[in-house]
């Protein structure tokens, strides 16, 4: 199992920050997922052995955290918040708009593997609602038109 050098540096730096190895687990999983796209059986086995855990323990943890996934996603994960602050300002409309535009529903991925759509809980953008995150980028004060432009830009980026 090969990770990038960046991952390895980060991992090597992080582990000694804690008195127990497994403490590095959650951020390590997220970094690994960022790199591989999802937490494959191979990634799980590798991280388990690095942190002296069983694969079961790693899976127990993965399945708890909503950002971690064992299933592949599209290149861009479009996460639309529909929680209260966003909802009262049209978050659901944004979600439906994305669903219509991308032709996919919650946790589904477009045929070209570019986009995955996800309805998410509050992402901490309440005062700038409605908001969405594409991968880690925040997009705020959204309108359907603004969302269209954003998705188009990602599509351009993704197909270049």
């Amino acid at each position, binding site marked *: 199992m090969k990770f990038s050098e960046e991952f390895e540096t980060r991992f090597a730096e992080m582990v000694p920050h804690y008195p*127990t190895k497994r403490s590095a687990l*959650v951020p390590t999983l997220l970094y690994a997922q960022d790199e591989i796209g999802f937490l494959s059986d191979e990634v799980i086995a590798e991280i388990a052995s690095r942190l002296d855990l069983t694969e079961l323990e790693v899976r127990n943890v993965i399945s708890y955290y909503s950002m971690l996934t064992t299933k592949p996603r599209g290149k861009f994960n479009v996460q639309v918040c529909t*929680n209260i*602050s966003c909802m009262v300002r049209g978050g659901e409309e944004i979600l439906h708009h994305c669903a219509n535009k991308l032709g996919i529903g919650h946790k589904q991925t477009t045929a070209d593997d570019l986009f995955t759509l996800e309805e998410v809980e*509050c992402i901490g953008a*309440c*005062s700038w609602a409605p908001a969405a*995150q594409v991968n*880690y980028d*925040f997009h705020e004060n959204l309108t359907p038109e603004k969302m269209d432009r954003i998705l188009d830009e990602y599509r351009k980026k993704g197909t270049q």
Partner: protein
Amino acid sequence: MASLVSHPDEVKVVSRRFGQGAANLDRYLELDGYNAVRKALAMEPDAIINEVKNSSLRGRGGAGFSAGMKWSFVPKQSAKPKYVLCNGDESEPGTCKDRLIFEHDPHSVIEGVVIAGLAVGATSGYIYIRGEYRYLSIIMQKAIRDAYARGFLGKNIFGSGRNFDAYWHGGAGAYEVGEESALMESLEGKRGIPRIRPPFPAVVGLWGGPTVINNAETLASVPHIILGGADWYAKLGPPKNGGTRLFCLSGNLAKPGVYELPMGYNLKKMIYEVGGGIPNGRKLKAVVPGGSSTPCLTADEIDINMDFDSVAKAGSMLGSGGVVVLDDAQCIVKFALRTMKFYQHESCGWCIPCREGTDWLKKTLTRFHAGGGLKKDIDNMQYLAENMLGRTFCPLGDAAAMPTIGFINKFRKEFEDHLEGRPCPYEKEGVIDHLPVLAH
């Protein structure tokens, strides 16, 4: 990057350096940076604790517990290392303030962590930031690196002969992990299941060592208290509610945003003056005063002061500072449903009342909102919520039950309007079928 707003009534303490490039260490130093740590290094631990106690700084994470008091619970002697843990999991719906602190003033959090460490005798601290806040993690990681490079962290900080290490830690999506004991579990690489208390974290916390856990805003306030003095800070707010607060105004407002206002600022003013009032000619229907866990206030109940004690007296809670405003086009049933979907999705599942209660409330509200409600459902929902209250393993169960009870009590009529096959009167026709239902 989140945009900043301002209002003349603001009293800028925590937000003093917002928008001034203080994430850059040199700039931070120009703006009084790290002077508080320097000052604290010359103080006795008890003096620091007393200063914070006297400032009547209360936890900004939600429960409003006196920060100084919490620090004083940490035993002086401990066989195991002590720790400081900054709670930057910020996930309470309606809350988006820690985000601004991390973005605009990351070093103030580090300073707060170091000072807390000096006060309780800890030599390392962890700054836990929720996984979604990747760009803030990057900012914080850089700030920590920069501070190490200058000798503000690590061995012999500021040449004082004292050591202090600060580390970043990241989450991966889980509201419950914001609960202090679940936070420690998560930091230890486990599922975010809360711990049995007692023992409290101040006695047995991270890896078994005594641990001070504070919200990012709480910690970011500390350097200002050390520099400005307890008196000054305490007097910014009413008695026992020292200082200012970052209020996150959101919802149906003309000028939503994060405003730093003195504790005890009037809610009505906050909505109509600071927040610019309700736009589109709409009227105010309800306000959720302190994040989604707090019972709503009706339009008649908003002439109150926004401090912990006053809001409690009004039957709600100041909570995390998330003020969510609803205009009269909003359906309370739908709002209750969305709130419950959140708790159902975020319940860790450990204890029966929360795991099952949130699920049944969500299911019932979903049917109810879609027009399938029965009269007995209203009582059932109230019964369910009341039976969760105070009986769950951690406060998440209460956080789900309290607003529900509030919605039903205060807007019973609106629930009744959904009865007997009448779908939500607020929805455009045909919309309900498409209502998203969060899959697990």
